[in-house]
Each structure stands twice: as structure tokens, then as C-alpha cells.
């Protein structure tokens, strides 16, 4: 396969939830072997984009190619084959609460391979060592802190040696130390395992320290793309609002509403 071609290619993507358009003519190329961050205000459909890339939902219009597969027409069996080449880190880790840390990381191996127990043990311990939690192998998910569960989930996501690793808001609710650990892991795993990493986040400052490329989504389109430095020096209003964290701007402070005074003075019979 052409190593230069983007691993995810999105063309003219359209998608709506409950009749509300989320994406309208979205184009995006995610290059191979790099850390790409997808940013945007809450409600711009970042998580929906991940669901589209991983085939949990299908686009209404346009096309998505992931690792050479067309996500619009891919059958269920093909999708499952493709997903073995992907790892995904959910916001809260999504560990299986009935199983210990060790069994959580071993889960994909036990489901998809017939490896002997000794080899499974070695693979799991190597991955746990990579995230620094080999000592926690026998703990249950309920005994872990938020940052630790996310690291276990990360070990589980890489245990099948995926080509693409997807992070859904990996920094939410972490203390500064755990956050630093996750940031370093994103970079290190990407480079040592030769992965492609896609990170969805709205933590501009944090993600700028590790990402090679940034995409800024707003209003269903990519409004800016570039390296962290390029985005910092951008003159576009929306980029400056987002990067600078300004409360009002192109993304309005107010949710669309009828006229304020008119609504206050009305007798409220419309409700």
C-alpha cells in the first residue's frame, strides 16, 4: 500500500442527527504515521466524526476511506476485520468492570487469537509495562483512578498492535500529572509502534504540545488546518477565538433564541 497516501480520507461528508446537520461538505485527510488532533467547540461533532471513522455510524453523503476501505459500503464482517487494525480509547476508559486489569488487556487476545497462556501473559505484561501499570495487573477497574483506567484502556487498545489509534477526549478530568503521562504516552506510542494517532480534544494548550497536525472544526466544516505554530499565528477570527479561549466571537455565547425582551414580556402561553 502507498505509504504516502493519507490513512483517512474524507470527502464532502454529510451527516445529520435528528434532522440537525452535523457535517456538511467536510473534507479531511489524516496523514499516516503522525499525531493528528481534531479540535473544535463542544457540539461540533468531534465524537460523531470518530463514530463515522470507526464505522459505528454511516455517512449520509460523501465518502470516508479508512486504510483503503470505503466505510459507506463496507459490510459488517469487513468492518470487524478493519477494527482489528484500530485501537480506540474511550473518554472514561470503558474497561470491562467484571475483569481485572490483566484480563481487560488480555480480552482482545483471548477473543481473537488462540495464543498459549504463557504468550498472552508476556504480551499483556509488556503492554502494561509500556503504560507503567504492570504492578496494577491484579487490580479491578473500580480500584483505579481516572488516569490509571485510561492508561489500562490504552494498553488494551494497543495489545493487538493496531495501525490506527484513536483517542476520544483523552484529557477530560485528569489531574496535571496524569495529563502529562497521557500526553507523553500519545507521543511515545505513536513513534515507537509506528502508529497513526487521531486525537479528538478541545484542550488546545495540551494537545498543541504533542500533535503534528491540527484540524479545527466548526459549523460542520474544517475551518483551519496546520501545525500548532501555524494555528497560533493565524489571523482567522474563529481560530483566534478558539485558541485564545474567548467567550464570544464567531461561535456565539448565546444558544439561538427568540428575542430576549419579547420573551420576557410574553405571558409564557407558548410553553
Amino acid at each position, binding site marked *: 500500500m502507498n505509504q504516502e497516501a493519507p490513512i483517512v480520507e474524507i470527502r464532502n461528508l454529510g451527516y445529520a442527527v435528528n434532522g440537525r446537520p452535523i457535517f456538511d461538505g467536510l473534507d479531511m485527510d489524516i496523514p499516516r504515521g503522525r499525531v493528528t488532533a481534531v479540535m473544535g467547540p463542544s457540539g461540533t461533532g468531534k465524537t460523531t466524526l470518530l463514530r463515522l471513522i470507526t464505522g*459505528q455510524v454511516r455517512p449520509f453523503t460523501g465518502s470516508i476511506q479508512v486504510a483503503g476501505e470505503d466505510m459507506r459500503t463496507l459490510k459488517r464482517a469487513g468492518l*470487524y*476485520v478493519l477494527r482489528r487494525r484500530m485501537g480506540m480509547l*474511550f473518554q472514561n476508559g*470503558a474497561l*470491562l*468492570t467484571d475483569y481485572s486489569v490483566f484480563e481487560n488487556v488480555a480480552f482482545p487476545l483471548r477473543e481473537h487469537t488462540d495464543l498459549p497462556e504463557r504468550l498472552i501473559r508476556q504480551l499483556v505484561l509488556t503492554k502494561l509495562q509500556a503504560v507503567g501499570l504492570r504492578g496494577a495487573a491484579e487490580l479491578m477497574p473500580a480500584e483505579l483512578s481516572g488516569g490509571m483506567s485510561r492508561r489500562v484502556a490504552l494498553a488494551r487498545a494497543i495489545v493487538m498492535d493496531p495501525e490506527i489509534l484513536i483517542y476520544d477526549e483523552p484529557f477530560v478530568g485528569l489531574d496535571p500529572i496524569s495529563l502529562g503521562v497521557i500526553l507523553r504516552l500519545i507521543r511515545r506510542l505513536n513513534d515507537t509502534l509506528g502508529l497513526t494517532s487521531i486525537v479528538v480534544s478541545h484542550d488546545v494548550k495540551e494537545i498543541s504540545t504533542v500533535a503534528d497536525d491540527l484540524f479545527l472544526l466548526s459549523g460542520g466544516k474544517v475551518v483551519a488546518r496546520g501545525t500548532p505554530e501555524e494555528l497560533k499565528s493565524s489571523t482567522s477570527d474563529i481560530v483566534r477565538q478558539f485558541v485564545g479561549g474567548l467567550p464570544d466571537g464567531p461561535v456565539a455565547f448565546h444558544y439561538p433564541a427568540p428575542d430576549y425582551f419579547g420573551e420576557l414580556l410574553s405571558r409564557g402561553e407558548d410553553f
Partner: protein
Amino acid sequence: MIIIKELWQSLIEALEGLGAVVRFLLRLLAFTPSALLRFDLIVQQVFNSGALSLVIIMLSGLFVGMVLGLQGFQLLQRFGSEQSLGVAAAIGLVKELGPVVTALLFAGRAGTALASELGLMRATDQLSAMEMMAVDPIKRVVVPRFLGGVIAMPLLAAIFSLIGVYGAQLIGVQIMGVDAGSFWSQMRAGVGLGDINEGIVKSCIFGVACSLIAVYEGYYAVPTAAGVGSATTRTVVTSAVVVLFLDYLLTAAFL
């Protein structure tokens, strides 16, 4: 007019719901052969649904049997036929009370546990995480739980009936003084294989119904605290109504 329209609407919705449940059942059945290959997962669920319900089933069986012994004795004594207490209690337990009360208790004990477990797995993204690991949650999580319930129910009903007969004997023979010989011999003569078959068929069908309702409600629970709560409630309510309704149909069919 509005009432008729709303009734019509809710009838349509009920039928759509029934259709969705049947389609879900067909999906479960399609995965059943491959799920049977991993029998350890099913055994685990038979333990969760069955063994962990044993205490409540045995206690209830004992009390129901004791009540039957007391009421049956009072009633039969009026006709001077208290010797038939054994056969009366056994028929009542094996054909009706065993399967029905077990199913109601099962819905309350194991069904709610199944529904809330699956609902919480949905709410905490565990089911989505499995899908992302290319593991089908229906095959890996739902089908073993469903089959575990289906297997556990007839066993629980049999234990319920057995303990119930002991309870009836305890009151009737030990306390009220019915002759032990005629209690047991009339029971042996009066309870036929057909009666036992009826009980087995009923408890198997109730097992399918209760397990299906529980896993369906749990799997499709709205992924919030309130959603999981209402899924659990609906599991008990729907199971109870469906079991009693099916019981009537099956009883009529066996006549």
C-alpha cells in the same frame, strides 16, 4: 375521537415493540450455535441467574408448599378427602405454582440483575468498547446471559416444586396428621408424566420470555441513570404480565 386515535397509536406502538423484540430474539438465536461453543461463558451465567437465585426460590417454595398444605387440608377436610392432599398439592405445584411463581421470582431477582448489568455496560461504553475491539457484544455478552437464564429457569422451577411438596407434607402429614402412606401413594398414582411435562414446557417457555425481556430491556436501555432504572422496572412489570398471560394460553393449550 382523540381517545380512539390515541388507543390506535398505542396499539401500533405495542405491535412495533413486539416486532422489535421478536427480531432481537431471532438475532440471539442466530448466534446461539457459536455461543454454545464457549460453554464456560454460559455456565458462568447459569451460576449468576440460577445458583444465586436458589435461596429465594427454595424459601418461597417452602412457604408456598406450606400454605398449600394448610389451605388444601382445610378444604379437603370438608369432603372427608384429606388423604388426597398429596396429589392436590403436587399437581398445583408442578403444573402451576412451580413454573409461574419461579418465573415471577426469577424476573425480580435475576431479570433485574441482567437488565441493570447490561444497561450499565451500555452507559459506561463497555458495549461500544467491545464493538471497537471487533467483538460482537450480542454474541459475547447478551447470548450467554440469555441462554444462562433459559437453562436455569426449568431447574429452578423443579427445585421450587420439590421443596413445595416437602412443605405441604410438613404441614399436612407432620402437623395436621394426614396419613403419610396415603399422602405419598395418592401423589404417585395421581401425578402423571403429562402433568410433569406441562410444568417443564411452561417453565422452559417462561425462561425464554423472562430472559429475553431482561436482556432486551438492558441492551436497549437509555444510557443514563434514569434510563437504566426504568429498564429494570420495565423488566419486572413486563415479565410478570407476559408470564401470567402465557400461563393462561399454555394451560388452555394443554387441556
